[in-house]
């Protein structure tokens, strides 16, 4: 499996999609910082009319907007909670996995590696490494932006940042496992990308939870990936906050097993 992992990492590092997606995320973080600086800080409100964005301050200018917000909240609001990160990461996963089937290179892989779990595990680990890299770069870039925008929000505790990063990584891995499962099932890039878009925005879970709520049967909603992706804890305060790890772990296992079953049962 390490051979496959080395092969996948080699391809990931050479794919344009990897850098385009990262660029999109960093742009999102930059725009979020820029906009909040302009509407939420006195210095920014002074600057906005000079760069032709006075209307922005007139309609949304409010210095209390940053009250109580720290670095983690800032990053969460900029790309994580709204689903932008998962959208981009999901699309990257779909493109990465489906390219194997689309190009036909999967035939070369499957001829050599007849134990299909190796293929799925390698894809999952590769996306896990990509996720770790993306999270680290996004947080690092956010920290630089924070410094550039005159310490707009306090950094908070390192412990909280690590707590958030660790569960976010696990939940993102579970999301990647879901996209991998759908991709090996459909073997179609358009289907994979479409599902990444739909699932990252909660377009499946939210309506279902709404309908279930009408019958008071929405108790499962806090255990969904979407809920945990958007509403997981920002810091550890009680043992119940660890639930997010359990959710991520269980979904990784379930989706990985399903992927292995699909890829084993289907012919290449």
């Amino acid at each position: 499996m390490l051979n496959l992992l080395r092969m996948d990492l080699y391809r990931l590092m050479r794919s344009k999609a990897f850098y385009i997606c990262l660029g999109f995320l960093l742009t999102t973080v930059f725009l979020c910082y820029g906009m909040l600086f302009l509407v939420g800080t006195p210095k920014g409100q002074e600057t906005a009319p000079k760069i032709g964005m006075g209307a922005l301050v007139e309609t949304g200018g409010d210095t209390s907007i940053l009250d109580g917000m720290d670095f983690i909240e800032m990053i969460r609001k900029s790309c994580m909670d709204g689903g932008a990160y998962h959208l981009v990461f999901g699309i990257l996963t779909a493109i990465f996995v489906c390219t194997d089937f689309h190009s036909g290179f999967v035939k070369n892989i499957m001829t050599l590696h007849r134990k299909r779990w190796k293929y799925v595990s390698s894809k999952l680990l590769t996306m896990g490494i990509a996720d770790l890299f993306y999270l680290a770069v996004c947080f690092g870039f956010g920290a630089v932006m924070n410094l550039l925008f005159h310490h707009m929000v306090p950094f908070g505790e390192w412990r909280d940042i690590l707590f958030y990063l660790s569960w976010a990584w696990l939940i993102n891995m579970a999301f990647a496992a879901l996209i991998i499962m759908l991709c090996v099932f459909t073997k179609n890039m358009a289907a994979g990308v479409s599902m990444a878009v739909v699932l990252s925005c909660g377009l499946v879970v939210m309506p279902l939870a709404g309908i279930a709520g009408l019958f008071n049967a929405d108790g499962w909603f806090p255990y969904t990936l979407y809920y945990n992706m958007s509403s997981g804890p920002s810091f550890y305060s009680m043992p119940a906050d660890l639930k997010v790890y359990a959710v991520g772990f269980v979904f990784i296992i379930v989706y990985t097993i399903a992927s292995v079953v699909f890829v084993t049962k289907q012919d290449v």
Partner: protein
Amino acid sequence: MKNEFVVETTALTKAYKGKMAVDHIDMKVRDGAIYGFIGRNGAGKSTTLKMICGLARPTEGDIRIFGRKADDPMCARWIGALIESAGLYPNMSARQNMIMKARCLGLADEKSIDRALAITGLADVGKKKIKHFSMGMKQRLGIALALLGNPDLLILDEPINGLDPEGIREIRQLILDLNEEGKTFIISSHILGELSRISTHYGIIKEGNLIEQVSRESLEKKCKDYFQIEVDDTKRALSIVMEHEPGIQAEVCDKHIIRFYHIKDGAGLNRILLENGLKLYASGFHHMDLEEYFLNRMDCMDTEKKEEGENA
């Protein structure tokens, strides 16, 4: 690792939604052979090759490669395959695709990549992206990928598709050279003339059934010499010949052509036909080649099937 048979299948079957794509095939490929796998489109060639390579799961039956079960991870190391089209990442260069396969194999040495690119004539285009490759170049790269890791068994499905005559000649020579080194080949191709120049054994598949496995020597014996005439009236010509040469083996191919087997005096036959006032357009001795043998075999099977249907 030496076995008499490199590939041995027993009752190998593949069914798709109840329809038999491959029906209880017992295929035997000898060590060091170049096994030409022949059949019409949809006969089950690619499905069989896919099952041997582990790309498709057999519905039934057993596959042994070098005497081991096909799902043995060691078997995968012994096989190099090019199935259908070459699977290549279009946005990567030829060399990068080779590196991908090398990493997949766990090869650290890049010399094998250079060697495979060189012997397939791609040494100069290693840095060119696949999306800018012609079909023939992709096919060569597919063969280069199959050669990586120095496998003992090469399975090539339509390897000369899209190649120019020079490319075909190079690949033919490459196959023969590698075969001399001791490598075994299973090659499926529609270009039977080309296949007949290199194959040492043949397998003919029809509608999922392996109807014949034959060595080149046996095939040579079966490919009979015949004397073919082209006349205006085959019915009359046949009756005249039968009258003069009772017991002659003849075959009416269409409304103008008749073939006579085991005949030595062609000129005598021509004279008889002309003396009886028949219009003789052409005549001559021919040797049946692989293509004719294959088509003959297919026609025989079709006729038998039709007759069985009528009798039923």
